[in-house]
């Protein structure tokens, strides 16, 4: 089986500034790699390239079916968590309700997300990762806005996902605490 994510000789220039060049990365099943780098070093862009949301680069990317959790949670304020997640339910993954219970939102599945705090909205975004059987997770600052309990939750979800043969690429300033490897964009 090919690795969930292979990036070869990636080169990206944005707004006239070269973010990285000659960047290679292979992420094997069961692996979690943290992307480090200063603000503006291209961490988010790298993740968006892996997700297929950014196409202005040279190099080759091969990625398995994936989930992407970016700065924006992808949660509509008008809908409840359940209504937000239902469309993404797929056979092979958790149901929306199960996923919300696992992320600690079991009591508020029917409350419109507009009434949620930032951290709770983040948890809805995290719950989406559990829907559908997608081996590759791309997480952009997953710990942002979360309390200590929520940060533990992210670690736990990542660990379980990796143990199940998934792979995680995570841009973060705070160490996740469960990563096998680290790559620093400042070196490229």
């Amino acid at each position, binding site marked *: 089986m090919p690795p969930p994510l292979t990036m070869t000789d990636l080169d990206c220039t944005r707004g006239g500034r070269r973010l990285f060049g000659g960047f290679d990365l292979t992420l094997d099943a069961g692996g979690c790699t943290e992307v480090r780098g200063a603000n503006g070093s291209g961490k988010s862009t790298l993740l968006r390239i892996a997700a297929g*949301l950014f196409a202005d680069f040279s190099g080759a990317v091969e990625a398995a079916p994936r989930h992407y959790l*970016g700065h924006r*949670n*992808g*949660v509509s304020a008008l*809908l409840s968590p359940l209504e937000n997640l239902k469309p993404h339910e797929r056979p092979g993954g958790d149901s929306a309700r199960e996923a919300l219970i696992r992320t600690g939102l079991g009591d508020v599945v029917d409350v419109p997300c507009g009434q949620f705090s930032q951290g709770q909205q983040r948890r809805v975004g995290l719950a989406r990762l559990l829907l559908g059987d997608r081996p590759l997770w791309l997480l952009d600052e997953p710990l942002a806005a979360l309390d200590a309990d929520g940060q533990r939750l992210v670690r736990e979800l990542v660990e379980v996902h990796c143990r199940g043969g998934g792979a995680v690429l995570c841009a973060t300033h705070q160490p996740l605490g469960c990563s096998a490897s680290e790559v620093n964009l400042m070196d490229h």
Partner: protein
Amino acid sequence: MFAVQFRRDWLCLMRSRDEAVNPLVFLFLATTLFAIAFGGDPRQLAELAPAIVWALVLLANLLSLEALFRRDLEDGTLEQLLLLAEPPFAAVLGKVAVQWCVSGAAMAVLAPVAALLLNLPAAALPALMLGLLLGTPALSLIGAVGAALTVGLRGGGVLLALLLLPLHLPVLVFGVSAVLDTMAGVGAAAQFYWLAAISAAALTLAPFAATAALRISVEQS
């Protein structure tokens, strides 16, 4: 995927009713203004009524198109749609369908009321309704491509209007002439066929074009 997205967007619409009724309110306010401001011969007003109603429907549609993708882009559900929907164009079509229900189908049903305010003869009302039903899908579908292209831009509203008005003109021309020909007692079948043809062509092409345009907008955001 179409049905799933349609249900989701319909729910959103029901939760923000002001947005849902805005196009209709616009249509009625503007027709009322026309009726009041036009102090002259009611028969003259009747001659102008088809053009006024069609132009207002077009503008109301344009107003609601501007908001079609905006909120989804801002809260990130648009990028999730592009990543997770299988296939994304079906989901985009679902979104456009909800927009059309409000600014196409509802308009077609209520436009005769507006037209009566403008003294349009009752005999011409079926032609107006049929024309709107056949023509507004094209307005929404072509409009969705423009909305997808301009959603990430500041002040995209004016650009959207500039982009879309030329593309919407044929629909406007055929729609108005269908009503006028009916009033004159000449058959208007040709215009209806044209409207249907434009809508069918838009239906086959626009969802793909809009999805591609959304990819560009998400990339730039």
